[in-house]
């Protein structure tokens, strides 16, 4: 799904709204999230996920092909962590009886 397909779907759900308003709504939402991350803020959307910015210190890296050492500048990386509800939705079993008991497995996402 692309942004224009998302806008299209929203237009179908909201026939009373102008397409240009729906475009503006979608743009506003993603702009707002980008602005927040640019300011170093966190965006927490319960059930969906959270956007945050991780800081990476400058380090000496290596070119894996040549082995040359290279200086890697400190940088900030946008990061997204999937919300619990969405993660569960993505992992809903197709048949209930096939679901393995939760506690049998170590869940790397639950710490």
């Amino acid at each position, binding site marked *: 799904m692309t942004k224009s397909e998302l806008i299209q*779907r929203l237009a179908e759900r909201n026939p009373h709204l102008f397409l240009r*308003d729906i475009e503006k709504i979608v743009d*506003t939402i993603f702009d707002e*999230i*980008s602005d*927040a991350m*640019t300011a170093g803020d966190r965006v927490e959307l319960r059930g969906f996920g959270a956007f945050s910015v991780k800081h990476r210190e400058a380090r000496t890296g290596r070119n894996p092909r040549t082995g040359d050492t290279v200086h890697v500048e400190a940088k900030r990386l946008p990061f*997204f962590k999937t919300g619990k509800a969405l993660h569960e939705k993505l992992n809903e079993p197709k048949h209930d009886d096939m679901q393995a008991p939760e506690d049998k497995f*170590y869940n790397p996402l639950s710490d």
Partner: protein
Amino acid sequence: MTLPPESKTITRADLAEAVYAQVGLSRNESSDLVEQVLDEMMEALTKGDSVKISSFGSFSVKHKGERVGRNPKTGIEVAISPRSVLVFRASHVLKDRINKATQAMSTPKSES
């Protein structure tokens, strides 16, 4: 533009408020539309579709098979069940924006 001294957390309510300020809708309808956007994205992802938002980033679902992992605290080996995980890849536009802001900032804020 001045940056606030410490980081805040933006929520659905803030997104709804921004929509309310930008578009001539009621507050109620603004928050409903924010919810609809997230709904549609989640629905597409649940169907296994990816969601691509230009100049922001893309969300895709990756399927991982069962593998043996280790509890980092105890060192005990455990089976990690097959699962679907959501992967977000930020666009270069977003990465560049975030890094331009870093250069302008004298002291980096603590990360979450």
